[in-house]
């Protein structure tokens, strides 16, 4: 039957998608446990590359920078983005076209343009005022700017999906503006804020281009370290770092999924 052939085709397509998505990750993960210094041949199971990572202070430092940057920028982005999302919702009756374009522009802007502009901007400020020398500070600012649109979008869509009379009900039931924030808006937003945090966190950990242009000599993150190391060839050590990153991102994704399921 024609239908059957079509279904078979779809199934093949599905499996191909899965293979091209996950097989490369699998290759990296498998070869991170290779006992010999190549990704061409399997020489037996070993944890030697992981051991070497543990004794590599530069790598440990880069991991620390990555996590610190991700946590700080995500917290700031969630606070600011939630305020923008709430503002967009409160004033949704007005024409907000230009404002929305301004806020969402960083999403569509090529990272490389965004990174270079950031760098040029920070350099100018630094030259004029001595402030904002490249380092963790500039990286946090750059990361927050590209995380905010995602947070604002998530918070805004949570509000839009809400019965608007809930705001009236809270007022009607004697809640003052502060009480409404504390007992209605924040608890209602909690799942959205957590997903926004997890998304911001993974975006930050993933980012290489923007970090590269805004980092200082002392603030290299893991992706920057990998990029530097790769110029000397792909070592199994890189595979080990990649495997650790895959594991941690997967962990955050699973945590976020579990949390949302518990809410639903």
């Amino acid at each position, binding site marked *: 039957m024609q239908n059957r052939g079509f279904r078979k085709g779809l199934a093949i397509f599905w499996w191909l998608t899965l293979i091209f998505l996950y097989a490369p990750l699998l290759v990296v993960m498998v070869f991170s446990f290779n006992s010999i210094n190549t990704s061409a041949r399997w020489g037996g199971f070993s944890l030697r590359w992981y051991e070497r990572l543990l004794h590599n202070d530069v790598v440990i430092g880069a991991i620390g920078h990555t996590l610190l940057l991700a946590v700080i920028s995500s917290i700031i982005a969630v606070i600011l983005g939630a305020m923008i999302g709430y503002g967009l919702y409160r004033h949704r009756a007005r024409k907000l076209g230009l404002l929305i374009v301004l806020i969402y522009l960083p999403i569509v802007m090529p990272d490389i343009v965004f990174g270079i502009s950031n760098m040029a901007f920070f350099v100018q400020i630094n030259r004029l005022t001595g402030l904002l020398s490249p380092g963790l500070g500039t990286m946090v600012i750059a990361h927050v700017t590209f995380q905010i649109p995602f947070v604002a979008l998530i918070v805004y869509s949570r509000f839009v999906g*809400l019965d608007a*009379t809930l705001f009236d*009900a*809270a*007022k*009607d*039931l004697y*809640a003052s503006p502060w009480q409404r924030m504390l*007992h209605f808006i924040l608890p209602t937003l909690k799942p959205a804020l957590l997903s926004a945090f997890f998304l911001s966190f993974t975006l930050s950990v993933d980012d290489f281009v923007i970090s590269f242009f805004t980092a200082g000599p002392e603030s290299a993150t893991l992706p920057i370290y990998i990029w530097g190391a790769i110029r000397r060839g792909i070592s199994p050590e890189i595979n080990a770092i990649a495997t650790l990153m895959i594991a941690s991102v997967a962990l955050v994704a699973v945590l976020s999924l579990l949390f949302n399921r518990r809410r639903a």
Partner: protein
Amino acid sequence: MAERSPTAAPGGPFSAIESTTGSEASAAREASSIRLKGIRKEYPGGVVALESVDLDIRAGEFFTLLGPSGCGKTTLLRMLAGLDEPSGGTLSIGGVDVTDTPPHKRSVNTVFQSYALFPHLSVRDNIAFGLKMRGMARAEREQKVVEIAGFIKLGSLVDRRVDQLSGGQRQRIALARALICEPDVLLLDEPLSALDAGLRSQLQVELLRTQKRLGMTFVFVTHDQEEAMVMSDRIAVLSDGIIQQIGTPQEVYERPANLFVARFMGHDNLFPISAREGATVQTPIGALETEDKSEGEVALIRPETLELTSPGAPSAEPGKRLNTLMCRVVERFYRGSNVEYRLSHQNGEQHSELIAEISNTGDRLFRVGDEVKVEIYPEDVIMLSDDEEGA
């Protein structure tokens, strides 16, 4: 300010209610009468939702704002709650001007059309929300929830999650959440419109009994004239932001103030008057005698006042001068307790339709196609002005 202390007297109205009659309770709530003076609402862009509304609502009254959608009834209700600000005029509750009082400082609670239960809270916490916001301690709140749950017979509903409740259950939780705050006035924004007919009439009765037992002032919004008549002490009929008539259900139904009110109350036997001479008016169904001395451009004859007999039968009230017309039965709707006939009447070239509602006394029913004699008492021919207020 209409703010009330968060701690109520021990054994609130929901525990001691059986020993209190409605009138005693309403005397205690004298403070809740509502007075609107020249209330206006105009939206930016010039759209006028309410045009200078004057209204007095008595303490302990079940008062209904009735009208089609867009007539301003919900806007008016939201102003009582403080959720919409009037563009002009003053509003007082219990003698205190609350025109500029924000909603969270008014002793008024609302049952919303969508019920607006908080999805992040349990049913129990939803009910206690208002008390918590007013700073009542947890133990006391829980005691109050138990009391109100007994009062509205919520049973095990308080232990459910909000998303596990049906429409009717949500409605009762929303009612409990508003009543537990013991407001001076309870506002209800079409709380029954989302429910199916059976549940709806059951909840109408429950709501009415609750109001009578508490003696609380209820302001109810609906677009359903039958619901309004069943439940209300008084009704205000609104159209285009203007009150067309205020009166008891009987007054509004039997003596509509104008054509709009008559149509909205479901009247169909409306006949334009072409000329009047003394007690005789000329209409498309012929000359009619009327006892109504008021001016009017339209004659209203309520369908239940028509007398139907066979063409040769004696008059329904011999010796009295009745309006008599011959009609033919076009359709018959049998409703058990009554029967509705659609009748056609030919007056020369003029063709008209009449509707008669005859209570079913077990007599022989007329059949479609039968010729019938219709008799109309002169006191049942009512003059209406076709000018709607403000139109």
